[in-house]
């Protein structure tokens, strides 16, 4: 069954986390602690005391890139199943018409490329 292919991956899903957890616990146990002082736990900022909160608000520009990523991520996701079959379709091994498929795909990609070009032109792709 196909399922078993994935089932072993579940083990691997936890493998990395398990190894890291073990390592941290080993480190906690074996480590030779130095004296606990206030400065020891202070955030490191080149040996100076920090000014203000470390968790600061950032620019909205970062957020836009996350959105762009999401959009293209979805595009990639939709292209994946189609492109796996692309060779077959073009060879005419399926029920689909190669020309229509090609046209469809072209429209799909072109629309998104247009979006990218629009963003570029509007100067949004500049990181600030």
């Amino acid at each position, binding site marked *: 069954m196909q399922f078993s292919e994935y089932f072993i991956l579940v083990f691997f899903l936890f493998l990395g986390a398990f190894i890291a957890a073990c390592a941290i616990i080993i480190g906690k146990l074996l480590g030779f602690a130095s004296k606990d002082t206030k*400065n020891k736990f202070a955030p*490191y900022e080149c040996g100076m005391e920090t000014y203000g909160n470390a968790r600061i608000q950032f620019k909205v520009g970062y957020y836009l890139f996350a959105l762009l990523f999401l959009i293209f991520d979805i595009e990639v996701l939709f292209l994946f199943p189609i492109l796996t079959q692309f060779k077959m379709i073009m060879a005419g091994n399926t029920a689909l018409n190669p020309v229509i498929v090609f046209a469809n795909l072209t429209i799909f990609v072109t629309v998104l490329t247009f979006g990218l070009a629009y963003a570029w032109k509007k100067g949004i792709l500049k990181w600030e």
Partner: protein
Amino acid sequence: MGIMNAVPGILDPIPGGKHLVNMLDYVTNWARANSLWPLTYGTSCCAIEMMSSSMARYDIARFGSEVFRASPRQADLFIIAGTITEKMAPALQMLWEQIPGPKYAIAMGACTISGGPFMYDNYSVIRGANTLIPVDVFIPGCPPRPEALFHGLLTLRDKILSETFRDPWKEGIVIDKPYPDRWSEATKAWEELEKIKDEEMAEARLKFKEEQPGYKSPYKALRVAKEVFPEIPHQPKPLIGLPANTIFSIIKKNFPSVSPFDNDPSEPALMARPSDMPLDVLVSKEEYVDLIQFLKEDPRTHLDYLIDVTAVDWIGHFDVITQLMSIEKGHKLFIRLSLPKDDSIPEENRATSLLAAMPSIYHLYPAAEWKEREVFDMFGIHFENHPDERRLFVDEDFKGYPLRKDFTHPHILKRPV
């Protein structure tokens, strides 16, 4: 607290456990001693030699220590490279505390052992890093060669290899005693010894004198013949830009009260001034800014470049010297302002209070901002209209102004010779 510290207690009673502990000892120490990741910390000359030692020629990577970590959280070894000042000390201690254990420190160079060249007559340098943090290995030298640093690393390695679980690594205790004045201590101790020796020897010497009344030592120290060199007089370079008398006549025309400082104002005397000694004019406080503005804007002088603003404390008054230059023409002019000290301040506060005030020329030369701050910081001269008058080099709560002649500071140790 790691469980490893409890290992000997658990394993020792078991037969053969001691060997196991020894083995563990060896393995942990081996790992620690051979994988020392230093913190990138360097303040002065020694830092350059520390960098050199990590470069191709010497290559600290051979010891596995090329992994210089910028964050103390991942470092093991604190190479204190360079002078530590009182302002730096808290930061240094903080960095040391932030290094997770087991951690080691190497004091590199004379400054970190004893203050080195800045040991005596100095108000700001910490005499020895081991007054701040526990130091494992000291490397003398100013700065030590990269090879010397490696020798220090090897010394540290031997020290780490000799650690055991029974006597585990622990954060050393800071020696809470400043670096002693070793010179004076040794002299004092020697004098006492001499006294005893004199007493003991008195008889023998008397006897010796009686036995050989006309004794003369057969030994005569020979002076080393020094090479003889010819006497060569100083030859000033040819003059650049406007000559002193021309500049002075330009000034004189507009500001009649200005006079040359250490020269008589007559033309031949000004002409005779050595060409490499710029004209030095004395100006009153009221005319100071106007004169500088005039000289900056006048196309003949065009003194557009501020070399420096500095001061001299002549016990009774301050001299503030503004050194100006013309970039295109090349002539220089020193403008001297004699500031009398404010006598209204009571004697006990004089050392810690501002004694004079003068106008700032920040609006004419942005470069003056920090230079005037330096004069403020070192002499306690207030600059009117200065945008940001804070202490520049010393701490905000530092008492006194170091470059005044009457400055005293509890930290200063007088040079005994």
